[in-house]
């Protein structure tokens, strides 16, 4: 069981840069104002329940899920709702946010803030899913898919294995790593809770071998819990991709256009599992998360416990910026993350890191001609031919791009990373996907 596993095709080995992996999680503190977006997940935006002037506490429900594929949003601070407005999100497009002015730090009654670990699961499966829904939990690895939907197995399908994703293959990011080190037992209990909701007895926590501390601690704890195992994985990017991880662990591939549940797998991020534990055992809705603030232009790389809605600039100031920094600010990791347009864009449920990279790191060299070396084909974890997709998009031939399955691209960026001609191959695949969306 304990030989190291990895996915079989493609993959790259970027420099790790995990400069904040030994730094304990600390509280980021409270900003003067938080901006809580009503859409932090895949699906329809939540319906706003509060009005200007309303007093809210930490954990108060401020927006209600609109439909099945949606999620509740809770206040992350106590204070007064000052505005319901449209502000620039990290992409620069407007998004609706609830602005709350912080006054004190009063929690909703019922939230258990004691550090005691509760391991007795008294709720049944339906109750657990209902609690998860009420806590507004979404996939915290980045996609933001509502967790209650994922933990409800469709009638015609059968769950066989729960995979807890503790891979964190993106360089720089250490939020999941620290969470596993500091909250190991909670994560293991969280895995048991989700297992109960799914009605299965089989959970695997997958951890990259470059996190020996987390592996050791979680392995010690899983000895006391039946049905939860640890699987160490060989470090390779993008092992944290859902499909790649399933392939690495089970050897089975998720067919194109299908979901992991179709082959009996359910993958949850460790952050999500921890949030489930807190919701079920501590009655705490999802209003804070761990965010890595790192990068070579950050003075003190940190792992912060951040209230949702905190502006990025607040966290960057907290971690300290090196002098004369004119770098690139990225939400997420350096491989898949995006440069942000607005420095005051709020942290959402899916923000795993904020990176400030100096110009030397963020520099994009000019592209040269493709030499047909095939490195991108070898690197693609999905088995696509990025150079051919790029060519078809250059020629505006969407049918050819479709034939080359550009739709299956997971946007990991391995192709662009490995390209010796520095062709922005990922950009072409993204463009193809945008065009497909438009066509529909």
């Amino acid at each position, binding site marked *: 069981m304990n030989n190291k596993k990895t996915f079989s095709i493609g993959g790259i080995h970027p420099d790790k840069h995990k400069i904040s992996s030994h730094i304990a999680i600390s509280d980021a503190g409270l900003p003067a104002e938080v901006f809580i977006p009503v859409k932090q997940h895949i699906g329809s935006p939540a319906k706003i329940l509060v009005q200007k002037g309303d007093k809210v506490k930490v954990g108060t429900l401020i927006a209600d899920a609109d439909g099945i594929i949606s999620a509740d949003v809770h206040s992350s601070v106590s204070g007064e709702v000052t505005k319901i407005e449209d502000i*620039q999100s990290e*992409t*620069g*497009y*407007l998004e609706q946010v609830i602005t709350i002015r912080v006054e004190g730090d009063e929690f909703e009654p019922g939230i258990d803030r004691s550090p005691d670990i509760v391991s007795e699961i008294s709720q049944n499966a339906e109750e657990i899913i209902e609690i998860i829904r009420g806590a507004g939990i979404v996939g915290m690895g980045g996609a933001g898919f509502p967790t209650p939907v994922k933990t409800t197995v469709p009638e015609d399908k059968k769950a066989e294995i729960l995979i807890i994703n503790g891979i964190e293959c993106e360089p720089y990011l250490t939020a999941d790593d620290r969470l596993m080190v500091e909250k190991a037992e909670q994560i293991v209990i969280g895995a048991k809770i989700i297992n109960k909701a799914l009605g299965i007895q089989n959970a695997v926590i997958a951890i990259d071998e470059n996190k020996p501390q987390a592996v050791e601690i979680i392995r010690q704890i899983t000895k006391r819990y039946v049905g939860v195992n640890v699987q160490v994985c060989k470090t390779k990017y993008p092992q944290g991709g859902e499909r790649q991880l399933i392939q690495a662990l089970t050897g089975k591939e998720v067919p194109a256009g299908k979901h992991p549940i179709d082959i009996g797998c359910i993958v949850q991020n460790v952050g999500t599992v921890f949030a489930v534990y807190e919701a079920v055992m501590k009655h705490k809705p999802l209003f804070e998360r761990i965010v890595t603030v790192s990068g070579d232009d950050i003075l003190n790389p940190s792992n912060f416990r951040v209230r949702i809605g905190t502006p990025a600039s607040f966290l960057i100031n907290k971690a300290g910026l090196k002098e004369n920094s004119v770098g690139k600010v990225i939400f997420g990791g350096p491989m898949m993350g*995006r*440069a942000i*347009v607005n420095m005051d864009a709020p942290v959402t449920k899916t923000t795993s890191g904020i990176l400030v990279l100096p110009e030397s790191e*963020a520099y*994009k060299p000019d592209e040269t001609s493709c030499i047909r070396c095939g490195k991108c084909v070898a690197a693609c974890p999905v088995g696509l031919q990025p150079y051919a997709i790029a060519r078809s998009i250059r020629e*505006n031939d969407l049918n050819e791009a479709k034939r080359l399955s550009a739709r299956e691209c997971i946007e990991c960026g391995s192709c662009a990373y490995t390209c010796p001609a520095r062709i*922005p191959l990922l*950009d*072409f695949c*993204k*463009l193809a996907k*945008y*065009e497909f969306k438009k066509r529909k």
Partner: protein
Amino acid sequence: MSHLIFSNILVLSSIALAAAVILYLVSKKFAVEENPLIDEIEGILPNANCGACGKAGCRDFAKSCANADEATFSGLFCPVGGNKVMKKIAELKGVSAAQKEDTVAVLRCNGTCKNAPDKVEYSGMKSCRLAAGVSVGRSGCPDGCLRFGDCVNVCRFGALHIDKNTGIPVVDETKCTSCGACVNICPRKLFEIRPKGKDNKRVYVACRNTQKGAMARKNCSAACIACMKCTKVCEQVSVENNLSYIPTSVSAEQYGQQLAEACPTGAIIYTGNKGIKENEQ
């Protein structure tokens, strides 16, 4: 030696002759009868194969024309060839051609480098469609021109180019056939096919930003702020979603000058004064 050459020539020639006869007979026997009009019409068409007519190419359009009766023929139009070509085809068919007003593509954005200065640096692929997908664009306007020129690349008639000074594309109305390729490719849907107008006089709102005035002005000084002044000049001008729209029925000759002067931001462009250099400011 020479008899070998002669026999070779003889054998090959006879094979060729036999094959020719067979081919001739077969082609006669299995000939597909096609309306001779199709070839004639195809000869008239511009053969740009741009697909602007909605058909799969010029041959397809010619087929539709040849097979059309008088009623359906009036629904067919080749935007590239224009009235001239349609008239010729109509003469061939012996029907009257529907005459359409000359049209041209106009850019409904005046977000030049000066009006809508860059706020952030964009280092991705130089493509408007990608830039619009990953972020709001350099100027910050969610509906404005991204200034990478996807429209220039898609134009088959060389009617578009990016103006070096303003950064936004300029339509050359002598070359534009209003085929609509730019309309379809622009991720912000900034091009509109409008009547060329008498003496090339056109008036239109060069803005598609639907944000509230103050917010729109933050990113672009030439944004429409829905001040309603244009609606007072001409009743047909409508303002919806914080954005003014001048319908094509508004006479540019009559109202153009007044509308352009009434607009406090310069979002309304009247081509009557400046000729075709409409976007240079």
